């Protein structure tokens, strides 16, 4: 073991942070690039399902809250792209990987948002599950990522509260609103739980990531924490969790649940969800429609500042 590797191992062992200028194993760097860019892409692609209702938000307040939320997600994406850049990959490369399918984003954003209640369910469940995951990542071993998570988590908890607020309005509203709320929960419950990834036994990257302290808690552990905190929130709303086997288990101190439909999960991961194609096409189109804008900005910079583009 050379002195660089020893220094790196010391950092991990002592629970200190790895910084961009530190030596790190190539696989550590690659793993982080994969995870951070996937996280960044999720923030950005996640703008679309919520953007779907932005123009139809039913009050001035909800319109502003939703737009501010989506803008926050764009900010998270921007921040995370910068974190990935410290590991030696450019935003352009990351976009290319996203477009080629080499880089993934969270599968949850491949589901359509079909009613206004989905704006509630997404905030409550999707941001909710993101928070559980990201709070855990505040202790991740890569310094810039950990600090980013601290900042981002503050905003995510706003998002979750605002989402839940929509659920409250819907669940206690007219019969039609309540029906929309239940329908949204029915559609988003299981996909939100699968956001935590495969079971620990089937998770390809987990054990090395845990050893390097990139990941601090296992998928199943985090998922259970989310279930335990969310079931009572659904009860308060008077909504039914779409799983007949959800019940409190005195012995384990957790809620039991049915097995998940992993076939659907992998099918969506592999590109065959309801909106995979649409999400990617939208992202590509926004970029390609505006190539001329970026070219103009670059040409202008060259002309006025003599900067080489």
């Amino acid at each position, binding site marked *: 073991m050379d002195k660089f590797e020893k220094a790196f191992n010391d950092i991990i062992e002592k629970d200190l942070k790895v910084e961009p200028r530190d030596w790190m194993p190539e696989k550590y760097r690659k793993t982080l690039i994969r995870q951070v860019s996937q996280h960044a892409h999720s923030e950005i692609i996640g*703008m679309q399902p919520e953007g779907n209702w932005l123009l139809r938000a*039913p009050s001035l307040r909800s319109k502003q809250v939703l737009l501010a939320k989506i803008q926050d997600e764009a900010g998270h994406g*921007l921040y995370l792209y910068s974190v990935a850049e410290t590991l030696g990959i450019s935003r352009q490369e990351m976009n290319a990987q996203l477009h080629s399918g080499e880089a993934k984003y969270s599968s949850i954003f491949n589901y359509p948002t079909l009613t206004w209640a989905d704006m509630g369910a997404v905030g409550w469940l999707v941001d909710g599950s993101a928070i559980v995951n990201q709070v855990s990542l505040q202790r991740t071993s890569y310094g810039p990522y950990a600090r980013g998570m601290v900042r981002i988590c503050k905003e995510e908890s706003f998002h979750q509260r605002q989402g839940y607020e929509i659920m409250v309005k819907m669940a206690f*509203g007219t019969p*039609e609103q309540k029906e929309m709320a239940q329908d949204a929960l029915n559609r988003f419950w299981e996909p939100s739980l699968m956001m935590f990834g495969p079971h620990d036994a089937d998770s390809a990257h987990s054990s090395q990531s845990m050893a390097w302290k990139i990941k601090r808690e296992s998928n199943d552990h985090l998922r259970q924490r989310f279930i335990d905190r969310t079931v009572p929130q659904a009860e308060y709303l008077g909504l039914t969790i779409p799983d007949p086997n959800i019940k409190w288990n005195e012995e384990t101190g957790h809620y039991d649940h049915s097995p998940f439909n992993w076939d659907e999960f992998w099918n969506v991961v592999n590109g065959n969800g309801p909106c995979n194609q649409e999400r990617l096409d939208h992202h590509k189109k*926004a970029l390609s429609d505006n190539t001329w804008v970026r070219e103009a900005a670059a040409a202008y910079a060259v002309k006025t500042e003599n900067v080489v583009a």
Partner: protein
Amino acid sequence: MDLTIKNNEAKFLVRLADTSLILGQRLAEMCSNGPFLEEDIALSNISLDLFGRAEEMYKIICDIEGNNFTPDDLVFRRNEREYFNIKLVEQPNEDFAWVIVRQFLHDIYVQEVYTQLLNSENSEVVGLAQKVLKEVRYSYIHSKDWMERLGLGTEESNARVQSAVDHQLKYIEEIFAFDELDKTYLADSDQLRSVWENDVNATLAACNLERKEIMPLTMRDFRDGFHSEHIGHLLSIMQYLPRAYPDAKW
């Protein structure tokens, strides 16, 4: 519900509120469609300012009208002919050049309007004007910067921005066809026009853009609730939920 605005000052203010709202909605369409992430965020920022501004103005209007209706009633329950925005702001986002040109032409106009409203006798309007002027300053710098970049950037960007200018200048004349209300509530309506003309002419010239002669157009006035065809589509999307579920609270 009778949403007719009866007070003269409120009638004047609703033109500004509607202009702000409709432009906010148009810019919101750009969310996740910007040329790059930083610009996406900037456009959302401006859109949020416009919605906030509209809401504050509607509150003032509702107060004047005795609070018989709310800002949300005004936004979601009025029909096309009851909207009084300038037609410029309902023009679509054909491409990024349209977005920028529309914003620029609007920003110069509202910058001077709100500057003049600092002299209003209504202290709430003055307070709002002070806040708006800070926001518009930012939006104006943003849109003017882009006018320059696009005008002086590439041949293609210059052609696109020129075509957006040619189209959108058609909707300017009506802005300056002031009526008695404008003349009452604006400190100096003539100056509004001259400030606007000077800035536009200087900026176009500096950006290698042409201001072409526009023939007088036959177009009914926004002050009477007349619009281009675009407004109906914009409203039907925006108002869909409260109209489809009239008893629901959101």
